[in-house]
């Protein structure tokens, strides 16, 4: 059930074709798995192992290194609050404490209704907009505690259609039309591109 579905297998094949070695596609494919199920299931990792030609243990070995991959169900909305230095200076930690109180959970926890998971995270490249947070990795800037409460009630009432469920990242994917690809160089190939050789020999 939690292997990749048919559409995602097709997507996985398209992604794999953009790399000279299949294993290079592993992190993007883990994201596809996480998008499908909201987290990375064991069955999905076994499926990915087949797709890229490595062992399931190797898939887990890679996946477990990266913070974004979760191995158990998460809230529909992952609320990540930055407490790193620029945000700390302008109330990031207080915002986190407010969130803990409001949601009734600690960092790493999920609300009983399965709507929210809270995390205390590192710099999210929005330091001039402190204090800031991400909901499913979409930024919200310069929030005071009221802004936070408003955001939470908007999410509860479903009035933030711009924020997709946890697991979904970019809503647009790269797609190279047939016949438009130059041809990815495999490491086994030798010799420089023809255009380069032609232009460099005079």
């Amino acid at each position, binding site marked *: 059930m939690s292997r990749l579905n048919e559409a995602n297998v097709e997507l996985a094949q398209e992604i794999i074709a953009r790399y000279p070695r299949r294993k290079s596609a592993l992190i993007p494919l883990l994201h596809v798995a996480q998008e499908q199920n909201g987290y990375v299931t064991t069955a999905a990792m076994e499926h990915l192992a087949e797709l890229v030609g490595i062992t399931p243990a190797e898939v887990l070995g890679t996946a477990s290194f990266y913070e974004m991959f979760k191995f158990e169900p998460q809230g529909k909305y992952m609320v990540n609050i930055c407490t*790193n230095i620029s945000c700390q200076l302008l109330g990031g930690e207080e915002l986190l404490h407010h969130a803990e109180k409001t949601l009734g959970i600690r960092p790493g926890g999920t609300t009983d209704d399965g709507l929210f998971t809270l995390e205390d995270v590192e710099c999210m490249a929005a330091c001039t907009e402190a204090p800031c947070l*991400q909901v499913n990795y979409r930024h919200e800037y310069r929030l005071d505690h009221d802004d936070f409460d408003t955001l939470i009630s908007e999410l509860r009432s479903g009035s933030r259609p711009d924020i997709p469920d946890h697991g979904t990242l970019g809503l647009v994917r790269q797609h190279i039309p047939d016949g438009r690809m130059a041809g990815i160089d495999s490491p086994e190939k030798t010799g420089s591109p023809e255009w380069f050789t032609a232009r460099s020999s005079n």
Partner: protein
Amino acid sequence: MATNTYVPHAAGYVDNEGVKIVSSRFQYEDSYTLERSLSTGGYEGMKKTLRMQPAEVAAVVKDAVLLGRGGAGFPAGVKWGFMPPVWPRYLVVNGDESEPGTYKDRLLMERDPHQLIEGCIIACFALGLNTCFLYVRGEMPVAQERIAEALNDAYAAGLVGKNIDGTDVSIDIVLHWGAGAYIVGEETALIESLEGNRGMPRLKPPFFPAAKGLYMKPTIVNNVETLANLPWIITNGAANFKEYGSEKSPGTRLLAISGHVKRPGVYEVEQGRVSFRELFYGHNFCGGIKDDNDLKMFIPGGGSAPWFFEEQLDLLLEAGDVGPAGSMLGSGAIVVMDHTTDAVKACLRVVRFFARESCGKCTPCREGTSWEEKILQRILDGHGRPEDIDLLLEVGANISPSPYPVAAAPESGLEAVPFPPKQTTICPLGPSSVAPITSAIRRFRPEFEAKIAAVSPVGAGA
């Protein structure tokens, strides 16, 4: 162009007075579209490139003295020259931006992806290669979708891919996205990650990417902002580029100035011409310290940089001056802290970052950073011991043999120790954790002592 307008759709970006080399389109709401790019000179540099010889293009970049904008500040043209005549070879774009305080590559990717794509093609052409991987940080879905859309449009318009702009030149750019790990920003870790592995750095030597990089083939890793400069440089020429900035550091930098200032924001600033004082107090920049408070300290180049103080305010934004003064400009991230800031708390927060992000490959970093965090935490919690201050310095010295780079402290007659630090580790992450510790203890030792003196008798913590 208005003076000092905060640009809402490019949150954080301040459109101030001055030359715009990489942020010229940020003022437009549709800056990320192909239409806007093409109507404002987009892809002109690439088209010019395609009419040149690859070596000529490389020579222009070398002549422009384009210093890498990812942190180390190494000239791109010189780095390109390190590639041995071996094929295949790859270009990997570093869009993993996650150094504390750094916010500029995300803006460049979200607001002007076509400029970056054009820069990639120019670099690939000069390097004689046809496969480029553009690695975007995992936690940046908007950057990922903007780049995906831009690539799709550019492929469809014949600006990327097979037979670019009707020529015989064919180059692919593949969007890749990560999954959350600061260390992956280090170039050899980025390559490991792109190979589908845990993002742990490789030992340099022998694994200098230019010689042994992706799939052990010659690979150039360049930062997003570095490449975003190329269209302008090729279109306008190296001589015009050198009209801006200083002789040693031509051109501009996109600086994120955050923390306790009145107008925090991302500013495009000419290198070598503006002092930190002007950046913090000048009307064209941040307009003063928040609430007119006093400055206590500032980080001039991201979480990894040793701290500066009042005495360094008149230094220019010049890598060649900041290094000998004991720190670095790093990733263009300036964090300003006023007199209300608790030095121990700020120090702990930056150290905690490195402890969390250590990849664990080498012992001094893995063990050392978590000790540093533990000791600082107990001092802050009121369980510090008198010997803890020296213990912190000792743990630091195991990761980075002293003397560690610091700013001068004229009042105490102490001189600056120049950047960079020494390291007992595989990569510079471990040594970076020592920066806030030595900076804070050297300057604010009494604050540490006061917290320790106020120790609560219950339990001595860890």
